[in-house]
C-alpha cells in the first residue's frame, strides 16, 4: 500500500471536470485507489465518491493506492494534482 499527502491548489477545487478526469485516470489501474479528506475515504473510481468529498482549493488530501500497479497509480494521481487536473 502506498500513500501520499497532497495539497489541492487548483482554483475551483475538485469540481465536476477535475473529478471526471480523476475517475477516468483511476479506472485505468488495476489497484484500488482512494482519496482521504478529514478521515473520510472516497473511491477514486467513483464520481459520486470523489464529488462527495467536496474538496476545495487549499485542502490537504491523502491519496492511497493498493494493488499490483499501486506505485504507478499513486504517481499518476500526484502528477494529476500537480498539473491542477489539466485546468
Amino acid at each position: 500500500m502506498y500513500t501520499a499527502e497532497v495539497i489541492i491548489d487548483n482554483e475551483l477545487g475538485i469540481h465536476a471536470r477535475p473529478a471526471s478526469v480523476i475517475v477516468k485516470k483511476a479506472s485505468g489501474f488495476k489497484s484500488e485507489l482512494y482519496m482521504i479528506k478529514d478521515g473520510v475515504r472516497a473511491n477514486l473510481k467513483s464520481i459520486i465518491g470523489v464529488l462527495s468529498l467536496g474538496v476545495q482549493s487549499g485542502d490537504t488530501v491523502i491519496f492511497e493506492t493498493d494493488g499490483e500497479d499501486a506505485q504507478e497509480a499513486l504517481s499518476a494521481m500526484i502528477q494529476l494534482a500537480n498539473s491542477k487536473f489539466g485546468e
Partner: protein
Amino acid sequence: MIIKGISASPGISMGKAIIKNSQATQIIKMQIGSVDKEIDRLKQGIEKSRFEIEKIYEKTLQTIGEEEAQIFQAHLLILEDVTLYDDMVGFIQREAVNADWAVQTIAKQYITLFENMADEYMSARAADIKDVSQRIIRKINQIEEWEVSEVGDAGILFAEDLTPSDTANMASSISGFVTEIGGKTSHTAIIARTLEIPAVVGVGNMLPTIQSGDYVIIDGETGIVVVNPAEETINIYKQKKQTYEEEKKALTQLIGVPSVTLDGKKIEISANMGTVDDLAGVLKFDAEGIGLFRTEFIYMESDHLPTEEEQYETYKKVAETMQGKPVVIRTLDIGGDKELSYFKLPKEMNPFLGYRAIRLCLDQTEIFMTQLRALLRASAHGNIKIMFPMISSVDELRSAKVLLEEARQSLIKEGVAYNPEMEVGMMIEVPSAAIISDILAKEVDFFSIGTNDLIQYTTAVDRMNEKLTQLYTPYHPAVLRLIKQVIDNGHRADIWVGMCGETAGDAKLIPVLLGMGLDEFSMSPSAILKARSVVNTTDSKLAACTIGTLLNQGTAEAVMGLV
C-alpha cells in the same frame, strides 16, 4: 374553478385530468434472514433499472433530442457508481436489512450531501441520484412504471413536478401538462414546447383540489387552467382552440414563401437560437437565417471553458446546416444574470450595469481570443457574421476589432482558412450607443437592435422586477425614437439594421418597424410565420407615413392606441 399559472407552452387542450401523485413508495425497514438474498435483490433491481434507463435513453434520443437524452447517460453512470453500490451492499451486510431500505438510506445520505453543497451543478446531481434510486426501489419491489397509456390518450397530466424520466416517457401520450412547481425554463416546459403540447407550470398547491377524471381546460398561452367548467366556458374555449389551430394551420402555408412587403421590399425574418438543438425549430419554421446565436449557452452548458475546437465544431455545424443563409453569431455575453459554475465572478451591486459581455471579454482577452479564432475558422464553412454585445462607446468597438484582427493574423500565420469578407457588426442595446449610432455606423457592417436591454436601460426599468412590468414596454415613445434614430443612422452609412429582441416578434409593432425601414427581424422560431404573415400584408411606404405622428405621442398608451 379557475387557476392561473405560468404559460410554458402555447395552445389549448381540453379533456380528462390525470393525476400523478409523486408520493414515493413507502419503504418499511425489515430484518432479513439471508444477506446474500438481499444483495441479490439489489443486483437485480440495478440490472432491471439499467435495462429501463437504456430504453428511455434511446426513446428520448429519437423523439426529443440529444441534449435531453444525455440526462439518462448521467443516470447510467450513477447506477453503475461503485461508491453507491459498495455503501448499499455494506449497509445490508452490517444491518441485515432489506435491499430497498438500504437503497433509500444510502441514497438519502448522498442526496442531502449534494443538496447542501449550494452549487447548481451539485444540486442537479442530487436530483439525478433521487430519480435513479427511486427507480431501483421500484424495480426491487416489482412496482410497475406508472403508464399513461393505460388511462387512455389525450388526457391532461397534473403533477407536483415531473422528473426527466416522467416527461420523456409520457410526452407522446398526453395532450397537456400542468405542474405545481417550475418556471418557463423548467424541463417540462422545454419538452412541451419542443413537442408543441400546451403546458402550464407553477400553479401552486392545486392537486388536493382536483380529482382524476375531472374535466379540465388548459390555455398554454395565458397560463389559465379551468377545472370542471360550465358548458358556456367549454364552448368559448372550443372556439378559441379552433381559431388557434386554424391560424396555426394557415401559417404553415407560409412555409417557403418569401417575406416581402406589399410595396415589394424584401425583408429577412430570422431566428434567435442558443444551442444546436434549436436548429430543428429554426428549419421547421423556415427562418431566413439566424439573426442571433447566443453563444453563452455553449459556455453555460459546459463544465469548463469550451475549447477553440469545441466551439469551432458547433459554429461550423450551425453554418453548414443553414446552407449559406446568414448566421449572426454574438460573442460571449456572460455576467449580469448569466453565470458560469466554473468561472466565478464576484457579486456586484448592479450586475446589469457591471462587469459583463464585451467588458469582460476585453479584459479576459484569452477567453475572447479563443472564441474569435473559433468563429473565424468556422466562417470558412458558411455565411457567418460576427456581432459584439453591450458596446457603449467607440473605444470598446475599436478594441474588439483590434483583437479580431489579431486573431485573423494568427490564423494567416498558421495558414488556416477563414472568410476574409466576413461581416462584423454590433448590438445596439445601450442608449449611449444608440445616441452615437451615426459615428458607430461608420465602423461596422451592420447593427442589430437588442430591445430587451435597450428598453431596460432607456427607461431604467429592471425587466425582471415583477412590480414594474407595467413600466417595461417597447411602446414608450423614447424607445421608439431611439430605434428610429438607429435605423436612420445605419441607413445613412449604408449598412443594414436588424432587431433581435422580443419586440421584433411583436405582431403589432412589426408594421411600425417596417415603416421605420428595419431590414431584418430576428425572433424565436415559433413567432416567424406569424411575423411573415404581417410583413406580407403591410405596405412599408404607407406605414412610414404614420411614424411621425406615432413618435409625437406622449405616452406608451397613446402609441398602443394607434398601432
